């Protein structure tokens, strides 16, 4: 890894100024960034560490759960307020990476990184979250902008995300049996306003997206049967050693049906490995 200047500023303002300069990047938990820097991409000249500066409070505000961007995955997964009011989110976050990664990785870092196989971006899209930064408040649907990209400008720092509470929601991810990251994940939710939302992650190289054809089919009746004839277009799907495009499309179609069925029963997260449940959760907290 190329060496860099390390800065630990005393305020978010100072962090924003330092990070706005050429070649600078923000460092949160580092579980994506440091790993990627070891591969040589990216290769910043300066890292601005915002750990300790970003809010990490997790609280209920009316019908929304607000999570400070500095909250680690372990903190979100274990937070009583999330487990009680939005258990599907607690369980999703409790399955990001592994326990050691969850002790370092943060909400802000995860959504700013927008990894193509990320779990948080799918949750933000399906739960219709709102992202707050040092400069603005923006809907999740506007925030993510393709492969590892977001609308964040140089020096702009994510400070929180707000998740509206829903009662019918489920997330299912199918793990690569060797590397154990998601090959496809589908998050299905029925909004408090009655609108269905289906977000798919890991399927496309350019990251999580809302599957509008599936949402249209579910409008009016949130029932898995309505998805029977919905097909995910192959255009833009990831292809690698483990899965080609048609396989990923089929996975997305099957998982979407299962997620809707699960959501109809109770909020849930299921992690599949080798086709059988690796965990159906709740006993792990």
């Amino acid at each position: 890894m190329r060496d860099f200047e390390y800065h630990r500023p005393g305020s978010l303002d100072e962090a924003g100024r330092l990070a706005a300069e050429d070649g600078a990047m923000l460092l949160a938990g580092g579980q994506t960034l440091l790993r990627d820097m070891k591969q040589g991409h990216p290769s910043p000249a300066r890292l601005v560490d915002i750990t300790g500066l970003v809010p990490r409070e997790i609280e209920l505000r009316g019908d929304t759960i607000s999570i400070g961007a500095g909250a680690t995955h372990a903190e979100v997964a274990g937070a009583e307020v999330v487990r009680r009011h939005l258990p599907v989110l607690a369980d999703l976050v409790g399955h990001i990476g592994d326990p050691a990664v969850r002790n370092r990785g943060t909400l802000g870092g995860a959504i700013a990184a927008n990894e193509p196989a990320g779990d948080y971006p799918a949750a933000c899209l399906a739960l219709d979250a709102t992202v707050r930064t040092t400069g603005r408040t923006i809907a999740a649907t506007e925030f993510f902008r393709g492969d590892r990209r977001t609308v964040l400008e140089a020096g702009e720092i994510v400070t929180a995300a707000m998740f509206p509470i829903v009662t019918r929601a489920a997330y299912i991810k199918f793990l690569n049996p060797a590397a154990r990251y998601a090959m496809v994940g589908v998050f299905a939710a029925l909004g408090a306003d009655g609108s269905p939302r289906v977000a798919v992650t890991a399927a496309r190289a350019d990251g999580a997206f809302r599957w509008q054809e599936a949402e249209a089919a579910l409008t009016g009746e949130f029932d898995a049967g309505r998805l029977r004839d919905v097909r995910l277009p192959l255009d833009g799907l990831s292809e690698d050693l483990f899965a080609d495009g048609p396989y990923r499309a089929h996975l997305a179609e099957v998982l979407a049906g299962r997620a809707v069925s699960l959501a109809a029963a109770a909020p849930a997260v299921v992690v599949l490995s080798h086709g059988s449940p690796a965990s159906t959760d709740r006993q792990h907290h």
Partner: protein
Amino acid sequence: MPEVSLTVNGRAARSGVEGRTMLSELLRERLGLTGTHVGCETTQCGACVVHVNGVAVKSCTMLALQCEGASVTTIEGLAGRGAPLHPMQAAFREHHALQCGYCTSGMVMMALDIARRFPEPDEATIREQLKGNICRCTGYHNIVKAIAAGARTMTAADRS
């Protein structure tokens, strides 16, 4: 060169490091604590797990400079020289939970993190929690048994 000051296994430590120096490198190459191993360097294998401020982290994916003021515990900090093994280390020995031993220090440090959160973890929980610790010898079976036994011993000791 920037400096970092921290506490390692209860003792104050201070070292000049580069920005890019990882905690694993600080421990092994500057402080001589080679019990922490480095396997994949891609945040997957868990050989480098240590505790920072009481929780398990992958020391190959944390900058040394991010540890300013932190309290770090490594495998060397679990039992003093000549002292009895920590109950979790003893459980690993008792249950033959290692073969080559390369993953073992990371496994033990993760096992302690599991025991902290789950006083009596069942097999499914232990296997799920070991997602980020890879062993290429044992097939995990005896590691899982050792962690269950070690956690039980620790919980019993806490209650007595």
